[in-house]
Structure formats: structure tokens, C-alpha cells
């Protein structure tokens, strides 16, 4: 592994376009410094996140997965994040049965104006994943 | 049979200059069925001087006592002195939120403190835990001449995150407690203004000026007595009244009494056992007592006399107004 990669782990993020992706943008505009481990995939709604994506990511090389959407009741598509909330909670509880530490998966709600909160979420989750170490030992 | 029991920290002032606060508090707690137990070998809480020198040291002084309370298997400590209270509350607040700070403080102690004790002022215990109904139930005497301005001082409800009690800008606990004890309470806008606190020695003229203002406003509010819950407030307003008069050319002669003493009087306890003779400005002239039954009879007679006039007035009001 390259020297660069050795400093970081790999975290995949699924962010909803309307709130969380905007929140991450706001954090950028505010120049809120964050660790670089995260790679963001944009989805229209947190309800679009199929639990299959999360498991796929963890099995094929991600060390942690983060999903973020609009706050419940504020979903741009009204109900999308309610479905996300149920599915992702179920997924979190099922992960140990797959032999995956559930602390490697985190879902949260960040609105487009919450730049500082996004910075906190990314920093905390990255720390959490680093504490667990890489998913697959070299 | 005691219904409630609290760990009790009197503090140094209550053993000396504020002895009457300790005596009166114990007396009324006994009357209300509350048992106060002092921790064995309690020591100085640190008060004002310690935290101006070093925060870790100050927390250690406070935490040593809290550890003693933990050993008593108690999780609530009550103290009548707001300064002791702040020392305990700040130690608890900072140690329970900052792991590193907690370790530093415990490093200075023989036995570590585990952040398991909640500290409450005696006023808070009386207001929240005992409750206004229980306070009112024990009243046997009314003092018809007494008009009290309750003075809270600076730190009973401030800073709000640490004190977690009453309103930080307009507290009403003492007002309500005294009212429940059948005492007439005036609306006193200066209830939280600074009296000068510990500047009594280094900056005496400041204390004279600020305490003078408090006395003036109390009289302006129609009070003939100030109720306090803090030994330093009592000292500045009572002990220094003569100095205030000399400096500001005023003529104040208003007694400053602990709220516990006033409640004790309402419970029929003797002025001697409540330490009423230990204050500088005497309250004898305004603490004339009559029994509750006598008071009720007087009120009933007054109401009967007013009835025919009132009925006429009421009818007229209904017509034109509402």
C-alpha cells in the first residue's frame, strides 16, 4: 500500500442531494477542516440507499460506511428518510450477524445549513473507524 | 420519625458569624421532619479564595467533602451557604464533564471522588423537595406587621448552567416559600443586585454604595425587613448598615433576617432558639406574632364589615365595565 493510503482508511458516504450533500458543501464553504478518508456518493434521497450498497461496500474494501439524509419531517420528498431510517436501523442490527462490527456503519441527519455539524459527524466517525482499524487485515 | 434525610454541610460561616442561620435552619428542618446528617471530618470548601488561586486545588477542596458524602451512601448534599454550594456544584460540573480534569483533581485526594453527589441549596430543598404545601401546613403564627423583601444575592441561581435552580433573572423560590409560611412578601425588583460581596475589606466604599442601594430599594418596595439566604449578604446588609449610613448620609434601620428564622417564627418557635438576638439591626419591633386562629378571626371580621359596601361596588362595576 502506498504511503498515502497508509495514513487513511476508506470510508464511503451516501449523502442525499438536498440536505446532507448541501451540508457538506456548506462545511466546505466555511472551510471546516475534516479528515480525508471519506468518499462521497451523491443520491437524490437517503431513501434511495439500498442496504445492499452498504454491505457491498463493507465487503469489497470499505472500512466504514456513512449515510446521511434530511432530518425526519424535512425530507425533500416528504417520506424518503422515514424509509431510510427503518431500513438502516435494521441493517445496523443485522451487521453483526454478517460478522461486521456495527460501529463501522453510521447513519445520521444533517441539513443543508449544518456545516459545523457535518464537520463533527465526519471527524467523529473517522475517529471511530480508525479505532476499529482496517476491515480486512493486510 | 424523620421522613427525609440529607447530608448537611454547614460550612464555616454558619459556625461563626452566621450561627443563627444554622440554628434556625436546623430548627425548621426538625419541625418539617427532615433529618440533617453532617459528614464526619468535613473541611473547608474553598469558597472564594481557592478558585481565584487554582481551579484544580479549588475542586479538590470541594471534592474531598463530596467523597465523604459518597461514603455516607448519600447522593444529595444540602448546604445553606451559596458560596459552599457553588464550590461543590462547580467541582461536580467540571469533574463530570472533563475526564482529564477529574483525574487531576482526584490525584490530589486520598480517596477519589466519583461524581456521584448532587448539591442543593437548603432553599432548593425546602422549595422543591419539601414543597410549599408542607411548609404552609406547619404555620401556627402570623406576623401582621411584617413586610419582607426577599434578597437572593448573586449565586443562588447563577450561572444558570451550574446552578440549575430557579430563574437566573427573576427567581421566585424564596418569595414563594415565605408566602407559603404566611409572610407578606413585597415585589422587590432589586432582589438580585450585587451587594458588594467579598469586597467588604479591600474596597469598602464599593460595598457601602452597593449595599446602600439594596437597602434603599427594599424600603422603596414597601418592605420593613429583608430576608436573605446567604451569610455574606446578611453580613454586608446588616453588619455594615451603620457604615452605609455614615458614608451615604442615610438613615436606614431595616432588619436583615435569614428566611429560615422568619419561617421559624411562623412555626411558633422561640426567638431565642432562632438566634433572633444575633442580628445587629433588631427585628423585634416588626415580628409581633399572633396565632393563626386570631389572625383568621380578624380577617373574617374585616370582611364582614366590608360586605355591604363591597356588594354595591361590585354591582356598579359589572354594569359599566366587563
Amino acid at each position, binding site marked *: 500500500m502506498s504511503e498515502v493510503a497508509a495514513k487513511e482508511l476508506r470510508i464511503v458516504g451516501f449523502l442525499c442531494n438536498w440536505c446532507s450533500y448541501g451540508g457538506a458543501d456548506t462545511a466546505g464553504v466555511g472551510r471546516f477542516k475534516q479528515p480525508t478518508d471519506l468518499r462521497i456518493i451523491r443520491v*437524490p434521497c437517503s431513501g434511495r440507499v439500498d442496504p445492499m450498497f452498504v454491505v457491498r461496500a463493507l465487503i469489497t474494501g470499505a472500512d466504514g460506511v456513512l449515510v446521511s439524509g434530511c432530518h425526519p419531517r424535512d425530507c425533500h420528498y416528504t417520506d424518503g428518510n422515514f424509509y431510510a431510517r427503518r431500513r438502516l436501523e435494521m441493517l445496523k442490527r443485522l451487521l453483526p450477524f454478517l460478522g461486521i462490527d456495527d460501529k463501522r456503519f453510521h447513519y445520521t441527519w444533517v441539513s443543508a445549513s449544518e456545516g459545523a455539524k457535518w464537520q463533527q459527524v465526519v471527524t467523529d466517525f473517522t475517529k471511530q473507524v480508525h479505532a476499529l482499524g482496517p476491515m480486512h487485515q493486510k | 420519625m424523620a421522613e427525609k434525610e440529607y447530608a448537611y454541610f454547614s460550612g464555616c460561616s454558619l459556625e461563626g458569624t452566621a450561627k443563627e442561620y444554622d440554628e434556625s435552619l436546623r430548627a425548621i428542618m426538625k419541625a418539617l421532619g427532615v433529618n440533617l446528617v453532617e459528614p464526619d471530618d468535613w473541611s473547608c470548601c474553598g469558597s472564594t479564595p481557592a478558585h481565584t488561586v487554582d481551579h484544580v486545588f479549588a475542586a479538590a477542596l470541594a471534592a474531598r467533602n463530596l467523597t465523604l458524602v459518597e461514603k455516607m451512601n448519600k447522593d444529595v448534599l444540602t448546604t445553606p451557604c451559596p458560596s459552599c454550594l457553588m464550590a461543590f456544584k462547580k467541582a461536580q460540573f467540571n469533574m463530570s464533564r472533563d475526564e482529564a480534569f477529574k483525574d487531576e483533581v482526584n490525584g490530589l485526594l486520598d480517596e477519589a471522588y466519583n461524581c456521584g453527589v448532587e448539591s442543593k441549596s437548603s432553599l432548593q430543598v425546602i422549595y422543591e423537595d419539601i414543597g410549599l404545601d408542607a411548609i404552609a401546613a406547619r404555620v401556627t403564627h402570623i406576623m401582621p406587621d411584617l413586610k419582607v423583601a426577599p434578597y437572593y444575592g448573586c449565586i443562588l441561581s447563577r450561572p444558570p448552567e451550574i446552578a440549575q435552580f430557579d430563574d437566573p433573572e427573576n427567581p421566585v423560590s424564596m418569595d414563594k416559600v415565605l408566602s407559603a409560611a404566611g409572610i407578606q412578601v413585597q415585589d422587590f425588583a432589586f432582589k438580585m443586585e450585587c451587594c458588594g460581596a467579598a469586597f467588604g475589606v479591600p474596597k469598602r466604599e464599593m460595598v457601602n454604595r452597593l449595599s446602600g442601594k439594596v437597602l434603599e430599594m427594599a424600603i422603596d418596595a414597601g418592605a420593613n425587613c429583608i430576608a436573605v439566604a446567604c451569610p455574606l449578604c446578611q453580613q454586608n446588609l446588616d453588619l455594615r448598615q451603620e457604615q452605609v449610613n455614615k458614608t451615604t448620609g442615610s438613615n436606614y434601620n431595616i432588619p436583615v433576617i435569614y428566611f429560615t428564622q422568619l419561617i421559624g417564627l411562623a412555626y411558633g418557635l422561640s426567638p431565642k432558639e432562632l438566634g433572633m438576638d444575633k442580628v445587629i439591626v433588631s427585628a423585634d419591633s416588626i415580628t409581633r406574632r399572633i396565632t393563626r386562629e386570631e389572625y383568621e378571626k380578624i380577617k373574617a371580621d374585616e370582611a364582614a364589615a366590608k360586605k355591604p359596601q363591597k356588594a354595591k361596588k361590585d354591582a356598579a362595576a359589572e354594569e359599566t365595565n366587563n
Partner: protein
Amino acid sequence: MRVGVFICHCGSNIAGTVDVAKVAEEARKMPGVAYATAYMYTCSEPGQKEITDAIERDKLDRIVVAACSPRMHENTFRRTIMKAGLNRYFFEQANIREHVSWIGLDKELNTQKAIEEVRMAVAKVMKNKPLFSSSFKINKRVLVIGGGVAGMQAALDCADGGLEVVMVEKSPSIGGMMARLDKTFPTVDCSICILGPKMVDVAQHDLIKLHAYSEIAEIKGYVGNYQIKIKKKPPYVDWTKCTGCGLCMEKCPTKNAYDHFNFGAAPTRAINIPFPQAIPKKATIDPNHCRQFVKGKCGVCAKVCPTGAINYEMQDEFITEEVGAIITATGYGLMDIERLTEYGGGRYPDVITGIQYERFLNASGPTSGHIIRPSDHEEPKTIVFVACAGSRDKSLGVPYCSNFCCMYIAKQAILTKDHIPDSQSYVFYMDVRSPGKGYDEFTRRAQEEYGAKYIRGRVSRIYPKGKKMVVKGADTLLGTQVEIEADLVVLGTAVVSAPGAAQMAEKLHISYDTFGFYVESHPKLRPVETNTSGVFLAGACQGPKDIPASVGQGSAAAAKVLSLFSKDMLESDPAIAQVNQNTCVGCLKCLKTCPFQAIVEDILRSGKKVAKVIETVCAGCGVCTSTCPCGAIQLQHFTDNQLLAEVNAICQK
């Protein structure tokens, strides 16, 4: 497939902390990439030309731009590649500015991250399919929510532009906050004199339909085709019969009803017309105070009404209006001064709010323009204004500036001198904010010509002393404490979001910030649009602002609606769900989960039951796609394969 990759320097915004040349170099090695380069400002005209030239020259068929957030320029670049003949959906934008260069300083780590973001975008764009919009008809009618000055301006501009307007106002009369003002700064124009004609125009315009004393119950549909359910509240007076004569108000025996129009500055009758210039000029009964409702007996108004308009049996009435666009102009609220305990807000009668004082100043107000102390009705001689009462205070949850208080306090200080020549006004301020045309000259006049004493410092406490209120504060320019014995204290109360703002936003599917103000598409460049197409903002609901700014936004919102309606058909967003009817098993789980009821059951000729998406209703959320057990329904442009391609690009290097 020939993918072209363009890495943007964005000046030094990206190039400062990302080695863009290296990113381009690595991009060239990625499978499918035929061309990769780094450019200074890709969104500029020459930058876009670089892209179109490269497409033509190198026969590129898919484009990736690594630059700012797609929320910023995705549409810009989509248009660029369209001009070069490519389908707009053969474009992906990697965010290496907001998500990389701006949030980290380690150039090596940033460059690595940028490379991977590009790799993801390339993997996705290679899976993209061409998508084509369809057109749908739009209903060229507009709903304006709120009858304040912003809403009225928007309505008038739309109507003058030939559109039919439906206006819904929740109070019995339009006019909003401006109708309550006495004079307006900086010209000291009489407020209702300049507002009145606009109100009449709104009432009389052929194309404007006004529903006063009504609220929005439900909003269904999408841009171009909304169905609005409106609840018309019962005024208990038949407005078709009411002539606004005011006799009922004169005779009503209940004199202590809360006066909403006067913000409680003085009580009013249970039946009332809010103010003389009200439109519609009709009476309304407040059932919370009316004796007929509370005690069951009175009926005086019914007896005296010359047209027999009173009707105690009225109920809520629901109607539906169909429109194509919505302008939200719901205004603002004011902080409850009881929260300012150190000022005795709500406890002392002689400590009042700016709007209550404004009502005292107003000749048609509760005191006929006489300034009085609420406690004893005497004329005050010393008046203290406290600016920033609640605003710019993190501890109260209002860290922002309320925009117009400095100006109205100066105005009120000037008017006070006119009303009471021997009065002395004091203003406690932190800063004097007077940025508009003539504004700074105005605040200076208050001090220099009208003798208002401005004290730079905050007020720490207000308490009663005898008949006066002592205002204790600091004078930071002199470095002393100040105590003023005032006859009357006026608090410049903080502006907060309108009551019910959050619920309204949920009905409209628009975002609101922590304070309840509605979120615009872009704080600098798109102040009157929201991220929900078809819904526009105007006025203080978007943030505290004064009358010229509100009027400006009203016109701006109207312009947006007029341009939206300038075409007869709108293009639908083709990034919607599509059912593969071969693989669909007809379980209809997607139908049950769709938040917009955009999926219906369809029976094929073979008799097979399948799901079908109604294109114009699908909003493109993708919940159906993650629900489908066999992957038959896929949200286009965010299909399972496309998203998994991004996952693979990150995880398997």
C-alpha cells in the same frame, strides 16, 4: 466509450491544495478515459469552449468535470455538452472543491482523494444512459400566500403581467405589518397612505382573487399543476352582506378582547374591523372573547346589524384552487418579550415593544396618536429605547441582526419629539445599522436635529422605582455605568420567523433554517427561489428585511413566475423511475412506498400485472428502487448499477 476528464484549478481554490496536474495525469490512465486535462476556470466561457472543442476534436462521448459542487454548476456543464451535441446525462461532476480542497490542507492526501473522486465519476459516467425530457402543460395561475407588502407586490406584478392570482391571507385583512406602522423611514411617509392604494389595487384587480381570513390546508401536485386546499375560517359574519359600517363594533359589550392588530397594545371589542383602512372592510368575531360563544348569551351585534349579516352558525369552509406556481410571502414574527426577564418584559406595563409603541404613535391607533404610559395613561417625558432587545444574542437563540430596528427606533425617536416637544429620548445601542439610501443621514438627524441621546452600551436591567422605570446600562464610549429614570421604555424586539412557519414549509416541501426562515436556492444569486421548483419566496419569510427589500423581492418572485409561465409547456425532469416490465413481478411494493403516489398498477396485454410510473408525478427520490425486490424499477441516472459502479471504484482499486 471515450470519456473526457477536465480538472479545474478554480484559480487557487482547488489548485492551492490539490495537485491538479497529477490528477489529470492519473485520470488519463483510468479505463475508458480518452482525454484528460487541467484548466484554470472551467466554468468560464473559454473553459466551456475547451470542453466543446475537445468533444469535437477527440470524439469524446462522455464528460467528467472535477471542480466545485455539482449543486453549483452541474446545469452549466450539462448545457455545455448539449451544445456540443451530447445528451446532458452523459455528464458527471466530481466535487473536489467543497469536499476536498476547501476542507483539508495536506496536498498529498487531497490529491489522492481528488483522484479517487474522479475515478468514481468516470465509473459512473460510463454507466450513464441518455435520458430525454417530456413536456407537460402548465396551469398559468399563481398562488400568493400572505397579504403583506411583499405578497401584494408579487400579486400585482403577476396580475399586471396577465396571470390569474389567488391570494390567501390568514388575518381578516391584508396589509401585514406595514399596515400597522405610523410612518416609514427614511422619508417619514405615512405608512397606510402609501400602502392603502396598493391594498385597494389588490382588492379591485380583475385577475386577483382574494381569500382573506383563510389558511392553506394542503398542497398537492408539482410545478405547473398544484391542487391547493384552502380553509376559509368562519368570521361569523356574512361578508357578502357586511358593509363595514362598524355599528356592531360600537355596540359590542365585550371591551377586553385581545387586539391582534395592535399586538395587545390596548384591548378591543369581540367583534371588530381591525383598522379603518382594512381590506376587506368586514367585521370578524373572535369566538374566544365573544359572550355569545363563551357564555351562550348576548347577540347584541346581530340585533343592531342593519343588513343582518351576523351568523353565529358559520363553519370552516374548504375550497380547492388549482395553480401552477406558489409565491410564499408569509412574513415574520416578533420575540415574546417575556423572555427578556432582566428587562421585566411582560411584567411591567410601562415596558413595551416597538410595534406597540408604533400603534400609540398612529393616529388611528388605540390612543388616537397620543403617546401614553400604559400604567397611568399619563404622557411620558423621558422615553428610553433599547435596541437589540433579543437580537444578536446567542443565549436567546437569536444570533442574527433583525435588520430594521435601528432604523425604526430612530424614526420613533424623531416622531416622539414631534408628538411631545418637551420630551427627551434616549437610545441604547450596540451599533447603528443604517445601510440603505438616506438611512445614515436619517439616524444622524434623529440625534442632531431631534435631540435623541444615543448611548453606546447595553442595558443590563430595568426595574421600577416609584412611578418611573430605572434603565440601568453602560456607556462604553464614556466608560461609565448609566442609570436613566424613564417614564416609558420601548424595546426594539427581535424579529423571529412567523408563527407556524415550519408547518407551512412542510406543506410546501421547502427547507427552513434553525430559526424558521425559509431557505433560498442560493444566498447570493437566487434569493427568491427555493430548491423546490414552482415555489418562490418573497419578503421577511426568507429573513428579516425592510419594506424596500420586501417589495423588491415581491417583484422578483413575480418575475420568476412570469418567466416560468412564458412557455406553454414545461420540460419534465427525466431522471425519474422506470419499470422494466419484463422483470417486474407485479408485487406492487413500490406503489405502496411511493411518497407521491406516482406509481399505478398496469395490466399488460399478456395479462401480466406490472407497475407503471406516472412520469409527470414522479419526483425522482428512488425509494421505489430500494424497495423493489427484483431491481425491476430503477431510478434513472441513479440506478443500482450506476451507484454500485461508484462503490466499486472506491473499494476495489
